[in-house]
Each structure stands twice: as structure tokens, then as C-alpha cells.
């Protein structure tokens, strides 16, 4: 028992607590890990939004910050841009995912693309955005391939592609990054709802593959993926780092503008920034409510339509179209990383050359030191944040199984809170808290801030395989005289080795991708590959960006490769494979 809690050993009282009680505290401790900083952070943001920030002379409550917010130039455009890019990207990512699974679930392409999704999931958002920006720009890779023989000019066309005024490039970037997440979540839910038998039943009743999937599997799958979809929507509505690279600048999306205000040398802008951060939260809440509204309408419509009994066609054309669309998404995501890797070894690569005209390893040699430092920091933070996340997740799940109580729906919402509350809405307040405790800029605080985001993902990745463990095996072990701790260490962990490692890798990649938390809580002293990449992106030397982008992608990928390859090496057959499917 005590060893089961090893990761928490320091906080655990030495004696006096019965083992069961101690483990029972893990879910509460886990929730407190989230709720405390988020609540305090929100408060620290809400007070200035109503004029209270004594340090810069805001001593009385007022609505002036809101007035300033609503009167800020381009405010309506900002809102419109945020809402359209957020909703558009989520809707496209969701529909594409569902369409692809519905149309292609029985094709070979499905398995192939599914395997490519994991690397794309592992790559941080900024890296995808930087890669995509270079692919799409009028002077970017695609136009270089087309020029001059197709465009007829040595000069790039003056097209409003990147940035485009409607945030479409941003929406595309979000789609590329969110589709793998939604797809893997959806596939994970398929087994739980008995998709195979549902499909077989419906096909036996004469339904085509797509109609069968949409009418019988989707209604069961959707409740399972609803929270992740909300998280995607919340993220898309409040994304900062991707919007800085792909979104328009005059005006930008609301979240980027808020960050600009927070960073404005005119400190009184901080009031408007805080009001904006509150509005951002409201926007996300409203967005989720709206989405939920659409959901209800869609479910009602679909039920009515399903009464008519239309069987749908063979779906072959659709399968090809959906497969192609998905392949494009994967190609854009991974292709962007690939061209940035090429940039890292380029010396000169001007428009309209399809490939660099001069190559050099100088960028690598010149940046090796800087890269090594931030690389090690990224690795250390990632390992700590992912390790803690997996340990807490295991503690929660084990406690849940021993106490015999599944978390309520509400508790799940709490777990998702960090993914639903926009980062910008609580990080300023959380930063003040960190300073007050003297923790800002310390590793522990940054790991904590990452933990807010690694934990939900680790939980997401591990909960289902954990709960799916054949209970009879565990009961058999107990009846053979094994203590719960022994069952945990000798039966569960070996059986779950693969999902545990995968969930660790997912959490690690989430930690690598964190930009705002590292920036705010790290007080700028903790430099990761991601913060360096964003800082350097303002310097716009693509070769250096290439180095950082490549490493940013390579590090989580390496951890994923280990997570997938290791169990096979440790145990060449049996449970690890089975449990990980």
C-alpha cells in the first residue's frame, strides 16, 4: 500500500492513517491541485476586471475596464474572428473526424492514417502552426513548388492567404492539430460502446456502412467524446500561441489581444486585459452552451430522420473523399514539421527555389548550447509533469476501484476544468499567487502549472483501459491471497504497462506544448523549447525556428516511440499487447 503511493510519499503522513483512507484522499488531492490555482487565478483576474488592482492604483471597484474593453478599436472584428475561427475549426475537426470514422472504419486507409495520428498528436501546437505557416504563405513551400512555371513569376503573389482577414489559416491549423485528438478519443470510445455489434446489427438490417455508423454508433459514441469536444472548442476559442503565428494581427483574436494588453507598457491596459480575460471565459461558456444547443437540435433531427429508415448507399465515394481529406490533414501537419526540419539545415532558401540553394549545419552547431539547455529543461519538466500526472491518475483509479465508486459526472467536469477554462483567464491571477508564495520561477511551480493540463490528458488516456481490466483476474488474484497492493503491482501494472506508458507519453507531449503557463508561472526564467520557439519566432529566422520546431516535435515523438516500443521489448507476448489495444 505504502509503495503504491510512493510518488506522493513526501506529502503522506508517516503513520496513523489506514492505507485505504490514504488512497481515498488521492482524488481529493488531485482535484485540489487543479481547483485551487484556477479559482485563485480567476479571482486574481476578476478583481482587476472590476477596477481593483491596488499596485497600479486601482483601489475602487468600477466598470471602467469593461467600458475600455468594449470601446477598444476593432472589438467587434476581434469577437467575430474569435467566434468564427473557434467554431469553424471545431465544427470542421469534429465533422471530419466523425465522417472519416463513419466512412472509412472498414478500410485499410483507416488503420494506416490512425497510426500517423499519434505522431501528429504528439507535436506541439506551435510547431504545427510554424510549419503550416511556411507551407501556406504566398512565398511558402506550395507556392515555391508552383513557381515560376505555374504562377509565371519569380515574385510571390500578393494574396491574402497568411494572415487572412477571416482567421481561416488559424482555423485550418486548429483542425490539423485537433483532428488527431478527436480521432483517437473517438476510436477509444468505440470499444466501450460495442460498436462492432451495433454495426453488424444495422448492416444486417440493410443499412450502408456510413448510415449504420451514423445512426447506431454515433449516438452511443457522442456522449463519450462530448467533454473532449467541449475542450477542443474551448481551446479553439482561446488559443494564443497558434493564433500568434497563423491568425491575423489587425485586429487579432480576442485571446491574443488580451495577451497584448497584459504586456502593454501602459500598465493601465491591464484593467482592460482582465476584463477581456473574463469576457474570454464568458465566450467559452457561451460557446459550449451554444454547441450543446446545436447538439440537442441535431439529436432531435437525427432521431426524427432515422424513423424514415433510409438505408444509405455503399459509401465508397464518400470513403475515398473522407480518406483523402484526412490524408491532407495529416500531410499538412507532418509536412510542415518536415519542411521546418529542412530549414534547420538550409543556409539560403529563397523564393522561388523548391529546395535550399545552400545547405549548412551551422545553425545547429551555433545553437547547440542554447538548444541543449532548453531541451534538458523541457525534458525534465515533461518527465516530472507526466510522471506526477500518471501517478495521480493511477492513485485516483485505484482508489476508485477499491472504494468501488466511479467519479460522478460532475467530478469529470472538474477534471476537465483546466481544459475548459481559457488559460489566459486565470494565469495572470495564478502568477500573482505564485509570486506571493515565492514560487514563481521555480521548477516546482512550473511543473505544477503543467500538471493542470497533463493530468486531464493522462486520466483520459488511462481511465478506460484501467476500468476495462477483467475484474475476474483481479478477484482471482485476491482469492489467491494477494493484498490489494500486490495485485496493483504484480497484476494491474504489468497488464496495463502499455496504456500507462502511452498515457505518460501523452502527458509528456502536453507538457512540452505548454506556452502560456511556462511563461507566466516560470517568470521567464524557465526556458523550454516551446517558449524559446515563440520568442525566436518574433525574430523570424526560419533556420533557427527550424531547429527548435524540429526538436519540439522530436522530443515527444521519441517518448512516444519508447512508450510504444518498450512494452514489446519487456514482454514479447501476452498481456501488454492485449491490454493496450
Amino acid at each position: 500500500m505504502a509503495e503504491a503511493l510512493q510518488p506522493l510519499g513526501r506529502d503522506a503522513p508517516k503513520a496513523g492513517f489506514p492505507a485505504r483512507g490514504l488512497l481515498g484522499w488521492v482524488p481529493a488531492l488531485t482535484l485540489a491541485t487543479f481547483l485551487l490555482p484556477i479559482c485563485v487565478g480567476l479571482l486574481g483576474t476578476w478583481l482587476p476586471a472590476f477596477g481593483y488592482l491596488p499596485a497600479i492604483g486601482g483601489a475602487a471597484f468600477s466598470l471602467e475596464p469593461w467600458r475600455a474593453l468594449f470601446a477598444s478599436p476593432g472589438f467587434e472584428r476581434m469577437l467575430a474572428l474569435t467566434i468564427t475561427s473557434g467554431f469553424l475549426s471545431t465544427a470542421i475537426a469534429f465533422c471530419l473526424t466523425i465522417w472519416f470514422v463513419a466512412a472509412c472504419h472498414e478500410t485499410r486507409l483507416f488503420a494506416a492514417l490512425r497510426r500517423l495520428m499519434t505522431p501528429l498528436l504528439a507535436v506541439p501546437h506551435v510547431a504545427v502552426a510554424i510549419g503550416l505557416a511556411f507551407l501556406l504563405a504566398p512565398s511558402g513551400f506550395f507556392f515555391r513548388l508552383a513557381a515560376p512555371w505555374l504562377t509565371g513569376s519569380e515574385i510571390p503573389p500578393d494574396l491574402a492567404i497568411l494572415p487572412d482577414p477571416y482567421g481561416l489559416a488559424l482555423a485550418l491549423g486548429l483542425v490539423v492539430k485537433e483532428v488527431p485528438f478527436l480521432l483517437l478519443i473517438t476510436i477509444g470510445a468505440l470499444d466501450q460502446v460495442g460498436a462492432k455489434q451495433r454495426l453488424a446489427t444495422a448492416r444486417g438490417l440493410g443499412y450502408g456502412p456510413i448510415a449504420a455508423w451514423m445512426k447506431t454508433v454515433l449516438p452511443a459514441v457522442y456522449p463519450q467524446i462530448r467533454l473532449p469536444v467541449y475542450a477542443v472548442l474551448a481551446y479553439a476559442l482561446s488559443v494564443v500561441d497558434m493564433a500568434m503565428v497563423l491568425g491575423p494581427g489587425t485586429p487579432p483574436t480576442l485571446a491574443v489581444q488580451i495577451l497584448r494588453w497584459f504586456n502593454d507598457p501602459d500598465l493601465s491596459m491591464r484593467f482592460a486585459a482582465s476584463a477581456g480575460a473574463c469576457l474570454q471565459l464568458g465566450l467559452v461558456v457561451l460557446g459550449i452552451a451554444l454547441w450543446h444547443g446545436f447538439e440537442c437540435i441535431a439529436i432531435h433531427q437525427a432521431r426524427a430522420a432515422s424513423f424514415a429508415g433510409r438505408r444509405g448507399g455503399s459509401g465508397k465515394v464518400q470513403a475515398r473523399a473522407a480518406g483523402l481529406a484526412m490524408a491532407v490533414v495529416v500531410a499538412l501537419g507532418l509536412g510542415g514539421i518536415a519542411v521546418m526540419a529542412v530549414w534547420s539545415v538550409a543556409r539560403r532558401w529563397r523564393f522561388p527555389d523548391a529546395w535550399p540553394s545552400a545547405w549548412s549545419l551551422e545553425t545547429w552547431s551555433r545553437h547547440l548550447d542554447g538548444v541543449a539547455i532548453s531541451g534538458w529543461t523541457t525534458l525534465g519538466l515533461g518527465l516530472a509533469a507526466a510522471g506526477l500526472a500518471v501517478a495521480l491518475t493511477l492513485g485516483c483509479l485505484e482508489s476508485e476501484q477499491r472504494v468501488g465508486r466511479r467519479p460522478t459526472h460532475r467530478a469529470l467536469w472538474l477534471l476537465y476544468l483546466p481544459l475548459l477554462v481559457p488559460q489566459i483567464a486565470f494565469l495572470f491571477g495564478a502568477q500573482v499567487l505564485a509570486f506571493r508564495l515565492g514560487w514563481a520561477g521555480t521548477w516546482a511551480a512550473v511543473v505544477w502549472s503543467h500538471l493542470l493540463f497533463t493530468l486531464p490528458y493522462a486520466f483520459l488516456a488511462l481511465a478506460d483501459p484501467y476500468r476495462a481490466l477483467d475484474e475476474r483476474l483481479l478477484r482471482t488474484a485476491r482469492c489467491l491471497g494477494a493484498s490489494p497492493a500486490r495485485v496493483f503491482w504484480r497484476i494491474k501494472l504489468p497488464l496495463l504497462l502499455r496504456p500507462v506508458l502511452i498515457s505518460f507519453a501523452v502527458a509528456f507531449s502536453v507538457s512540452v506544448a505548454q506556452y502560456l503557463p511556462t511563461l507566466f508561472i516560470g517568470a521567464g526564467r524557465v526556458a523550454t523549447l516551446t517558449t524559446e520557439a515563440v520568442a525566436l519566432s518574433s525574430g523570424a529566422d526560419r533556420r533557427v525556428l527550424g531547429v527548435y520546431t524540429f526538436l519540439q516535435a522530436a522530443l515527444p515523438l521519441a517518448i512516444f516511440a519508447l512508450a510504444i516500443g518498450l512494452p514489446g521489448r519487456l514482454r514479447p507476448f501476452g498481456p501488454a499487447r492485449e491490454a493496450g489495444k
Partner: protein
Amino acid sequence: MMKRVINVCAAAALALAAQTPGAGAGTAWEGVLAEAKGQTVYWNAWAGDERINAYIAWVGEEMRRRHGVEVVHVKVADTAEVVTRVLAEKVAGTAEGGSVDLVWINGENFAAMRDNGLLFGPFVEGLPNFALVDVEGKPSTTVDFTIPTEGLEAPWGMAKFNFIHDSARAPEMPATMAALVDWTAARPGRFAYPAPPDFLGSTFLKQALVELTPDPGKLQQPVTGDPAFETATAPLWAYLDALHPHLWRGGQAFPASGPAQRQLLDDGEVDVTLSFYPSEAASFIANGLLPDSARVHVFASGTIGNTHFVAIPFNASAKAGAQAVANFLISPEAQARKQNIEIWGDDTVLAVERLDEPGRALFAALPRGPATLSPEELGPTLLEPHPSWMTRIEAEWLRRYSR
């Protein structure tokens, strides 16, 4: 002093290090150096340029070797982030042991920190090497955007607004802001400027304002009121309204920053980028960031110039170490290295002609590239307007063009 001498190897460095700075400061300064020894200085500095980062790393090595001071470059995308952080520390009541020891700063950010009591000092007069600074010839070393520095920030380098153009595609450049409109009309989509409040974008607006406003003298005073602002800036808005339709993307989008526009120039999307360092073009070429045909262009009537500084926050953990760094930054050796286009290419704040012989020799030996202009060719330096103008202009620009 002797201790330092023994440690230095290079002959030039030997001579320089032995230079005796301002008399009388000796004892107090040695106290500072003694206190600095063993301290770690977290220097928050914009990190968008690799050459600058490399230079800062060199400063760190020298400080460790000479004074036993560790320098950590905290890389910053936007200096305003640092202001935010120090502010957050003040909000949290961190009066000591703050996270920032030294910050690269000027203009609005300096004004914001000064006005909110976020700065330590005055300390600049106590720096021995400050005596070498050309405070008469380069008035902006003590007046930052018309605001007296009052010893709260130490000058580090000189900036002067200029254009970099690709001479292969745009051989002829306009001679004035007014001529720029015709130039862009003749080649639509080939000119751009970064969106304010990016400092290069804002400087472009200031340059236009200084050239176009009826009474430039008024710009040296704070804005007195709306009517005065409207009178002074009306020609600017008329000018921009005429200019924008011919810009890159039809003036509907603007490059995000100066470096982003440098990338656009290299990509061939535009023919011109803006710069604050006249030697920058040469080093861009040397580093493979711009084509060999890139050239510097300034207006004969002069362009805006200013000084950039380093300052110490009120709650810095290593104030002595930070002062030691600030002093080293204005040593002839550090300044000459900084002005070298192969290193960075940032003009010195020192009065070179007043240095001793080895010091002058360092500057005389600096290399020059085809894209480097001599001080005479660079023309006169126009003074920055008072920051209140900039704040108003940026807000008005956003109101008019960012919607």
C-alpha cells in the same frame, strides 16, 4: 584593478581593462564589484536576434571571467512581458529577491516602469565607464524619448531608423516620406511597415509625423489636448490614407514585427524592410538572412534616432552584479565588439574620439561591408517625439486601421 589585469590575456583587452575610469568612484565601485562577485544576474533581454543572443552570451563569459558574476540571459519575446512580471511581483509584495536583475529597455517600457516605481536607482552616475559616454553629442543617452533618464537606466547602444531595400528589385528609393507614396503607387504591394505598436512600425509613423506635421517643435512637448493632437497629426492620417491602398496586401494586413518584415523581404514578398541599426543590413547579408543585393537607405533630411538602455528593477536580487554588467557593457571593448557588423553592428554610445589610443584603435579596426553607410552618409538624427504622442498615435492608428 591589478587583479583584473592579470586575468586578461588578449593584448587589446589588456590595454582596455587597465584604463582607469572616473576618478573618485573607485572605492565605492570596488565595494560594488566585491558584492557582485558570486552573484547571478538574470538579464531579461529581447531574444529575437541570434547575433544579439550570441553577444549577450559573450558578455556572460567575460563577466564570469573578470568579476565572477554569472549572467543568465532570460530570453524575452517582448520587453513589456518583463514590465508585467515586475509588476506582478510588486502586486504580490515581493520587494526583494525579484526575478529580474537587469532589463534591456527604452521608451514606453522605461516610462511605464519609472512611473510605477518599478526601477532601482539612480545608479548610472556611479558606473565608472559612464564617464566615457558621449552625453553631449548623443543627447538621447540621457533623454529617453524626451523623458530624462535620471540615472535610472544606463545607455547601451544607439539606434537610427533606416530602410533596407533589395537593390536588385528596387534600385531607386524615395528621398522623403512624401515621395514614398508615389514610389509605392508605382509598385503596388511591394512596401509595408509592421503594425504598431511594434516599435519599428511606430517609428515609421513617428518619422512620417516629424516630416509632415506643421510644427515639429511641438512634438518635443507632451500632447496638450485633443485639438492640438488633431492639428498636429491630420497630415499624417491623410498621408497614410493615401499610402495604404498601395501597400502589401492592400494595407489590409501588416507584418507582425520588424523581423517578420525582414523575412518577407528575403522571401521576395516586399522590396523594403525597416531597421533601427544601420549596420544590421550588412550583418543580415553576412548571416544569410538577406540577399547580397540588400542595401541601407536613409532620408537626406535625417531619420529618427534613439538610445537603448539597461535598467535594474526595484526588487532585483543581484543589484551589484547588475551594475557590474551595466558598467562592462559601456566599456570600450564591449562597445567596439558590439559595433562590429560581424558580431552585431549596434552603434556605440561612447565618445570614440575621447577614448585613449587603444580604445580608438579598436573602433578604427572594425570591418565594413558594402551595405554599411559611414556616419556622414547616415545623415542627421531626428529626435524622438515625447512618448505621449506615440501612445496617442498608436491608439489612433489602431482605431483607424485595425478594425
